[in-house]
C-alpha cells in the first residue's frame, strides 16, 4: 500500500513539474508568436536584458501582459469551475453553463451603453453584479432537491440563451456589430498592463481564498451529511465559495469578455490527473487553466492569420466537443 501511495505522490510531482514547465514554455511561445514572429532568444533577451529597442517595447508592453493575462484568466476561470462543480455536485457546472458569464457580459454591455465614459476599473463591479444575478438565478433552481445533470444543463442553457439574446439585441439595436462578437465570445486581444492591474487583485484574492477553502470543499464533496457530521458549516462553505466564484468569473469577464468552457473542462482533467482531493485539485486547476488558455490564445492567432481572432472561439471549438463527451458519459461521474 505504501508503495502505491509513494508512486501516486511521485506521479503527482512529475505532473506538477511538467505543468509548470508547460506554463513557462507557453508564455514564451505566446510572446514570440504574433503578427510578426520574434525569436525565442530575443524574447529571453528582452525579458532579462531589456534595452530600448522597438522589439523589447513590443514584448514588454504588448505581448507579455497579454500572456500574463491569459494565464491569470485561465487560472481564475478554471478554479471557478472547479468550485462550482464541487458545491453543486454536478460535473457540468461551470461559469458558462450557470449563466455567470452571460450575466456578467450583459451587465457590462448595458453599463457601457448607459455610461459610455466609464473606466474599466468600475465596469468590474457591474460585471460582479451581472454574474451574481446570472449565477443566482440558475443556482436557485439547483439549490435543494434533486438536481440532475440535465436539469442543470437545461436551466443553465435557458438562462444563457436569454442573457445572450438580450446582449445581442442591445448591441444589434445600437449598430456597431464588430464589437458584438467580442462581448459574446471573449477575447484578450489588445490588452495591456492596465488590464492586468485591474484583474490582478481580484484574481489573486479569489485564487488564494479558493486554495484556503480546499480542505472544506473536499469534505463537502463527500456528502452533505458527512460534512455536517464532521463539523463543517455546509451553507457557509457554499456561500463563500459562491462569492469566490463570482469574484473570479466576474472579474475575468469584465476584462476579457465571456471566455467559455475553461471552467468546464479543466476540473475534469485535473481530477483525472491528481485525484479527488480538492486541496490538490484547486491549485492544479489553476495551473492547468492558465496553460490551456495560453495555448488557446496562441492558436487563436492562426484562425484568420494575420488577423487576430477572439480566444473564446478556440475555447468554444475545443470545449463544445468536450462537453459532448461529458454528456455521453452519462451521470455516473464521481465527484
Amino acid at each position, binding site marked *: 500500500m505504501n508503495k502505491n501511495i509513494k508512486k501516486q505522490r511521485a506521479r503527482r510531482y512529475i505532473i506538477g513539474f511538467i505543468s509548470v514547465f508547460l506554463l513557462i514554455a507557453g508564455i514564451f511561445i505566446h510572446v514570440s508568436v504574433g503578427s510578426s514572429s520574434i525569436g525565442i532568444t530575443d524574447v529571453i533577451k528582452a525579458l532579462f536584458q531589456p534595452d530600448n529597442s522597438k522589439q523589447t*517595447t513590443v514584448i514588454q508592453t*504588448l505581448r507579455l501582459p497579454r500572456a500574463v493575462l491569459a494565464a491569470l484568466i485561465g487560472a481564475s476561470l478554471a478554479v471557478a469551475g472547479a468550485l462550482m462543480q464541487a458545491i453543486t455536485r454536478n460535473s457540468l457546472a461551470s461559469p458558462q453553463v450557470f449563466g455567470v458569464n452571460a450575466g456578467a457580459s450583459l451587465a457590462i454591455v448595458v453599463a457601457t451603453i448607459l455610461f459610455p465614459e466609464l473606466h474599466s476599473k468600475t465596469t468590474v463591479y457591474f460585471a460582479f453584479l451581472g454574474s451574481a444575478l446570472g449565477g443566482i438565478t440558475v443556482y436557485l433552481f439547483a439549490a435543494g432537491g434533486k438536481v440532475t445533470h440535465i436539469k442543470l444543463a437545461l436551466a443553465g442553457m435557458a438562462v444563457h440563451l436569454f442573457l445572450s439574446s438580450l446582449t445581442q439585441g442591445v448591441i444589434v439595436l445600437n449598430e456597431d456589430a464588430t464589437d458584438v462578437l467580442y462581448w459574446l465570445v471573449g477575447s484578450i486581444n489588445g490588452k495591456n498592463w492596465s488590464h492586468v492591474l485591474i484583474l490582478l487583485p481580484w484574481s489573486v484574492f479569489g485564487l488564494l481564498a479558493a486554495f484556503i477553502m480546499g480542505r472544506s470543499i473536499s469534505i463537502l464533496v463527500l456528502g452533505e451529511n458527512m460534512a455536517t457530521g464532521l463539523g463543517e458549516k455546509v451553507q457557509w462553505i457554499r456561500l463563500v465559495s459562491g462569492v469566490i466564484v463570482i469574484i473570479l468569473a466576474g472579474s475575468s469577464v469584465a476584462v476579457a469578455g465571456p471566455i467559455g468552457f475553461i471552467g468546464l473542462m479543466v476540473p475534469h482533467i485535473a481530477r483525472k490527473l491528481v485525484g479527488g482531493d480538492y486541496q490538490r485539485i484547486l491549485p492544479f486547476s489553476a495551473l492547468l487553466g492558465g496553460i490551456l488558455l495560453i495555448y488557446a490564445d496562441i492558436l487563436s492567432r492562426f484562425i484568420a492569420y494575420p488577423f487576430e481572432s477572439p480566444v473564446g472561439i478556440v475555447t468554444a471549438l475545443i470545449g463544445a466537443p468536450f462537453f459532448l463527451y461529458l454528456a455521453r458519459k452519462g451521470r455516473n461521474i464521481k465527484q
Partner: protein
Amino acid sequence: MKTGRKLKIVSVMAILSILLVLAGCGAKQDSTDKESSNNQKVAVKHELGTTKVPENPKRIVVLELSFVDALHGLGIKPVGIADDNKKDMIEQLVNGKMKYTSVGTRQQPNLEVISSLKPDLIIADVQRHKAIYKDLQQIAPTIELNSRESTYEENIDAFKTIAKATGKDKKAEERLNKHEETIAELKKEVKEENGQTILPAVVRDTSFQAHTSASYDGGFLENLGFKDAVQSKEAYAEMNLEQLSDINPDILILANNEGKLLTDEWKSNPLWKNLKAVKNHKVFVVDRNLWTRFRGVVSSEAIGKDTVKLLHDQQK
C-alpha cells in the same frame, strides 16, 4: 364522437388558413398589375438587372446615405430616407434642414412606411437590401447600387446611374466636372504632402479598424495624391498597436466612435509615442459620419477640404 368534433375544428382551421393564403395570392396579383400603367420609362441598368424607371420621378425613397448625397448633388429632395432615426445626421449631410419621412434603419427599412409614401423610385444598397429587392419592386421601380461596400470609383458610377434614373444626366455631367475641378484644386493644395502615407481608421473601444486602399476613404485619399498605408484587396483591416507601429504611417486619421476608445490606452505606450505621425503632430481626429458613413460626390469634397484644413492648420 369527441374525435369527430376535434376533426371538425381542425378542418375548419385548415380551410380558413388555406382561404386566407389564396386571398393573399390574389391580392399580390393586384398590386403587380398596377405597375404597368405608366407612360414613359427609362431602362436603368443596376447591380441586380435592369429596371424600367418612370421619367423624372418625383417621389424618391433612398435607403442609404450615399444616395442622399447623390440626390443632394443633383438638387433633388427625396421623400423618404432610411436614416437610422438620426435626423441630425441627415441635416449634417445636406448641410441644412430638409423635410422628409424616415423609413427606419438602413439595416431593416420599414416596408410599410415606404409603401405608404407611394414612391415612384426606390434606390437601395445591393449589399444590405438584396433580400428585399422583390418586395421593393412590388412597391415601386427599384434600382440597387453599390453603396456600403463601394470604392470611390464605384460611388461615382452609382452617381451617374442615379442621374440617369432621375433624368438629370446633364446636371450630373456639370456636377462631375465641377467635382473634378474641386479635386484638382485640392490636389494642388496638398502637393507638398504628395506621396506620404496616410491611414484613415475607425476607432472603437475594443477595435482599431484601418481603412485600406480598397476602402472608400482610402481610395479617395489616394486620388488626392496620398498613399494609403495599407494596400490590400480587403477594405478593412483590424489592427493592434504592434501592427500599427510596423506600418508607421506619416499621417494618421482617426474617425472616433463615441465613448471609450482603444487609442486612449495606446497613448501611454512608447510604441505609440514613437509613431512618425505622433511625433510630427500629424494625428487628426475627424467626424465619423462624414468620413465613413456618408460617401458621395458632395461628401468627398468635404472630406478633401477637411484634409487640407487639418494638414495646413498646424495648431497642435
